[in-house]
């Protein structure tokens, strides 16, 4: 599994800036749990497809559905391209 591409999404709907990150494979719970060192993880497993959220305070919030091939990153107000690149680096590291 690796990052396929990033897509900037309509910002008025979400945070100041937001991106969908698409992967070559579906997201599994084990992958989400690897983010535990970064911040707080919330998983709502009572839904048909579990919803997860990773809150990295002051930088970004990741949210997505386990079983889908993408998740959404909502950048904090003072975060920008530097934090996004840092996240991409972290994801690539976790996927190794």
């Amino acid at each position, binding site marked *: 599994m690796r990052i396929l591409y990033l897509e900037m999404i309509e910002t*008025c*709907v*979400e945070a100041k800036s937001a991106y969908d990150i698409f992967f070559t494979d579906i997201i599994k719970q084990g992958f989400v749990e690897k983010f535990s060192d970064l911040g707080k993880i919330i998983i*709502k497993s*009572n*839904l*048909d*497809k579990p*919803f997860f*959220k990773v809150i990295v305070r002051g930088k970004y919030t990741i*949210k*997505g*559905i386990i079983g*889908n091939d993408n998740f*959404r990153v*909502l950048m904090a107000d003072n975060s920008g391209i530097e934090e996004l690149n840092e996240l991409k680096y972290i994801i690539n590291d976790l996927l190794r």
Partner: protein
Amino acid sequence: MIYLNNTATSYPKPISVISALNDYFNNPPTNFGRSSAQSSLSIIGKIREQIIDFFGANDDYNVVFTSGSTEAINLVIFGLDLSTKELIITSNEHNAVIRPLMELKSHNKIDIKIADCDENGHLDVTKIESLINENTALIIVNYVSNVTGNIQDVKSISQIAKKHNIKLLVDGSQAAGNIPIHLNESQVDFFAFTSHKSLYGIQGSGGLIIKKNLDIKPLKYGGTGFKSTMLTQPDEFPYKYESGTQNIPGILSISKGIEFINEIGLDNIILHKEKLMKRVIHDLSSIERVKLYFDIQDYSNSVLSFNIEDYTPDEVSYILQSSYGIEVRSGVHCAPLVHHNLGTYPSGTVRVSPSYFTNDNEITMFLDAIHKLAAE
């Protein structure tokens, strides 16, 4: 996909609208005023009459075609001489009203007063009257809120405006095709509408219905297909306001959308949505962790705003879309002021809005998904 975002734009469109546009694009263009086809003039003229009739207006009113409500509202705000005047708006207003006004205000040209709604989105019209002074020149009211679905008492507001000799602009974006409108009775001065919402037309079309005795400056200048040897803008209505090639497909879609509504009957469309929304309200009200934002006394059944405890609005819409294939909308819905009244600023609400084409099964699937989200 289950589409419950008709307040943003309606989907699907009636077959008759699609067929008419298909015919239009598969035939030589009928370019209003710019071809030898005399029929184009009469077609557009008939559509103006059809619109006047649909909105319960009479010969006292005219129609100007615009790209939608936003342009129609801009035409009034920048077309009237509002320098140094005061304006009254309600907290229900959309950014289509707020932003042009803030632009004028930034040049110190106007003062804006806001009549606030209560925590359910209800507006007490006496609040508007209490804000009037000798310098008030214009009142702007959103007929049906795109956040709460509440209907404003436009007739009473119009009476207040007339009593004080103040112009009234009504933003009819969510009202057109959702509730019966009788401009003759309400006697509003300006009524802005859009095609692509509950009139079932396409994006980029709409208009301004304007009282004939009122004169405002055009928003744009240029070719009108009329008195083309003149180097200055013609003064004749509606040409003075309609520079540039007309959006004929858009205008056609307004006409076909109105035809569709008239064939089904606006009352039947209202009944259908009322039935669906009563079910949604009844069901969601039974969920302890769901909060609804509306006032049952003034409710239009066009849209319902809600939130679910422990979820942000954007999380709810994201989950509904990504996990259940249900399209709703989240956020402040381009109407930020009312969220201060509702207590939902800045994250906003989730907004569900069915159309005549929404069926019971789709509502069942939506409600099932909400029950799962709201479960502990």
